[in-house]
């Protein structure tokens, strides 16, 4: 039976306290906090994180397709899924696809994945949803939005939650929109959207699902569904005749915020993290209609539970931004004084030649002397053997900080730029930049891991590469 075979999630390390947003604008902005992607992160890099988390302990070659759902892609023209595939070191003879434009993209992808597995065109399909939507300053969305990503592996073997059925509803209802060139989302009157959209469309799809599968609301163990913010989310639960206290999985409004396309899958993963075999899970997304799924948790769930960073571990691992100003800086929301230092260039031919290193963080191991080294070169830097290497993946290798420096004047959004010389467990040295770090806690000998990030914005490109960070959780 087709279903979910693994899950993974990602929440960026930074949080912004809503009281700091309120203090900035001199009004209430609610309690709790929201997640904030670091300046070197975007929906694509967060998607890589969730994908790799989802595949922990699994054979990466087993993935036959990757669908990436987002409304905040780094490029409007240029696929993200192909980069996520490469960074996660998946095979290249697979189908990659971006699903954009609708917050319902995660279930669009899920539907396509389920169909592919059922049709036999793919055994395992990775569904990735990720968003970091930029809210207009001093808008209601600023405190509501959060950044995050989720990944679900869909297959028919060792299923942890079976797909029992689904109902799909397409609607021409317009609530929020963003045209090419719009920096921020636009929105119609909130009461109209609430009454005609959230409280009607998603509940309608769920009611149709109840009818189709001949189940009652009380059969649901946990409902995991999209809601724009916690209050409306609760109202939607009541429309579906669900008890918000016992049957509804926390939408993480107080801790993460609305992560757009990734929100419903992230709620689902947090439910799976504590689910028991036999649990009935309602999973529903909203936007341009609604998709509703019924899932049943299987005995296999215990094999995955506790083996993923998922939602719970990422939630606990956090750093609070010191101020609203830092948030503005990280999100690059203002026009800054032009720097006097010329921008650093990129070069696509160089990146293409070095694609194994740039995207997959492959080092090379000398077949003559066994030493691991990067970047790529023809002659071994230890024994001078020529052209006698094999690639080794270093993206999942941890290391120890050998030495570091902290440059206060680098061309980097979050200063200081922490130059890091990292000795890798198993051999090799990676000269890198440390991100997601507390500069007070940077010290020689600390343990580090790899993370796929934006290395620089040069030549009008988003230039991704691997960085290091203190072991997250």
């Amino acid at each position, binding site marked *: 039976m087709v279903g979910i075979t693994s899950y993974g999630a990602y929440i960026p390390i930074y949080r912004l306290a809503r009281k700091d947003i309120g203090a900035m604008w001199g009004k209430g902005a609610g309690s709790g906090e929201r997640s904030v992607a670091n300046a070197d992160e975007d929906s694509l890099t967060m998607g890589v994180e969730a994908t790799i988390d989802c595949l922990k302990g699994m054979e990466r070659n087993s993935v036959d397709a990757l669908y990436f759902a987002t409304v905040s892609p780094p490029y409007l023209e240029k696929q993200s899924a192909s980069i996520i595939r490469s960074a996660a070191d998946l095979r290249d003879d697979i189908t990659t696809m971006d699903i954009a434009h609708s917050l319902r993209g995660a279930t669009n992808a899920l539907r396509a994945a389920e169909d592919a597995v059922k049709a036999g065109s793919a055994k395992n399909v990775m569904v990735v949803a990720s968003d970091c939507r930029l809210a207009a300053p001093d808008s209601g969305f600023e405190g509501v939005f959060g950044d995050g990503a989720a990944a679900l592996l869909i297959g028919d073997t060792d299923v942890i939650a079976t797909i029992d059925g689904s109902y799909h509803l397409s609607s021409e209802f317009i609530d929020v929109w963003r045209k090419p060139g719009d920096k921020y989302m636009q929105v119609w009157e909130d009461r109209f959207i609430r009454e005609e959209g959230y409280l009607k469309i998603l509940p309608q799809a769920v009611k149709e699902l109840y009818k189709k599968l001949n189940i009652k609301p009380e059969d649901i163990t946990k409902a995991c569904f999209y809601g724009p913010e916690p209050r409306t989310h609760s109202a939607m639960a009541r429309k579906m005749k669900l008890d918000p206290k016992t049957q509804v999985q926390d939408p993480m409004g107080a801790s993460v915020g609305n992560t757009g396309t990734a929100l419903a899958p992230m709620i689902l993963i947090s439910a799976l993290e504590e689910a028991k075999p036999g649990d009935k899970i309602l999973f529903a997304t909203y936007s341009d209609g609604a998709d509703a799924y019924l899932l049943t948790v299987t005995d296999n769930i215990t094999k995955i539970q506790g083996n993923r960073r998922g939602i719970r571990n990422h939630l606990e691992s956090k750093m609070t931004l010191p101020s609203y100003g830092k948030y503005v800086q990280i999100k690059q929301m203002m026009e800054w004084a032009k720097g006097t230092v010329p921008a650093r260039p990129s070069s696509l031919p*160089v990146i293409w030649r*070095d694609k194994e290193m740039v995207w997959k963080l492959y080092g090379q191991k000398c077949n003559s002397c066994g030493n691991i080294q990067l970047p790529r070169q023809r002659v071994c830097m230890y024994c001078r053997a020529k052209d006698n290497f094999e690639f080794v993946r270093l993206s999942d290798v941890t290391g120890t900080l*050998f*030495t570091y*420096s902290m*440059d206060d*004047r680098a061309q980097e959004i979050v200063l200081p730029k922490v130059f890091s010389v990292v000795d890798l467990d198993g*051999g090799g*040295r990676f000269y890198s930049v440390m991100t997601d770090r507390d500069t007070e806690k940077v010290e020689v000998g600390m343990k580090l891991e790899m993370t796929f990030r934006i290395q620089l914005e040069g030549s009008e490109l988003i230039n991704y590469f691997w960085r290091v960070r203190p072991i997250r959780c």
Partner: protein
Amino acid sequence: MESIKDKVAIVGMGCTAFGELWDKGPEDLMVESTYEACEDAGIETTDIQACWLGYVNSDIAMTGIMAAGALQFDYIPVTHVENACGTGAETFRGAAMALIAGAYDVCLALGVEKMKDAGFGGIPQAFPGKWHPVYGAAPEVGGGVARYALAATRYFSYYGLTPEEGKTMLAKVSVKSHYNGSRNPKAALRKAVSIEQVLNAPIIAWPLGLFDCCGINDGSSAAILVRTEDAKKFRPDGDYITIKGSSIACGPSWGKERPDYDYLHWEETERCAKQVYEMAGIKDPRKEMQVFELHDCFSIAEVIAAESLGLVEKGKAREDIDAGNWEQEGEMPINISGGLKSFGHPAGASGGREIYEFYKQFQGKVEEPSRQLKGDLKMGIAHNQGGHPGNFVCGITIVGEPPAAK
């Protein structure tokens, strides 16, 4: 293989004041240093048969035409050389080799750099070794501080120094050099500073602060080189110096990528020193040389250079500094000129500027008498290196008194 020791003599030298020379272009600087050198050697610029021109900053020009135009050479060969901070040493080496080969009789080694037209502080587009858009922490304009700071962090950590102890050691180096530079009219920064000032200065790249760093600026140095047997024709007074050893060592491997590189020594400096000491017949560099111009783009660079040149045992620089041995009256005055710390570092001009310091000290012609070293000055070292710890190019020139005592 024969040593080049004493085969080539420097019979004339010139050096501009270094600094942020807003009113001077590279042509002005080359004219000033070269005409001073020619006048010193008693020749005309038209007597120069070949020129080795060193500059790093390709923003200012390409090729050797820049010097030919500025100095109105008569279609002679001008070879543009670039080897990062070892560029100056490279000009002397190129000219010396040509003289030894007998290809020319009078050569000019000319270094020039015009960094302050760029519009910002720091070395423009400096990519030691291989440039890559994303690898290697992404090349940073002005990123030299962070690169050397990696070594400072490691030095403190390995030798068990607290940041305060480590930074105090480095501060003493800067205080010493600033004091020397305060008495050098050609230096860019002619101001003594206190340890407190150094320690309280803003951080540029932790653990290095403002006074741990040299500036990037403008300047030019020039030297007239001839075969030693001809030297007296140019200087009947015998007041010339000879090259005892000259070499360049390019790090072949990516030290920053090999876990066996310790960030505590400069391998390229050690290798280059071995070559030049052998040429010069030096067994005990600390005792046999009297003038030590070391590459101090950053305070930690001087500390580790002193150790890597074999002037002090590894890890013992701090004791040596505390004992005052690096100061003018000390056993081994390092950067008596004021160093890069006081002069700034117009990369192509620094190597020649360091040799100029020995030349003037040897002749007893130091402009400010209080800075004149006492005693018999037999040999001096001009050391430069550029790049990344573990991935440097090092250039060293050892100069000294001519074979027959003056």
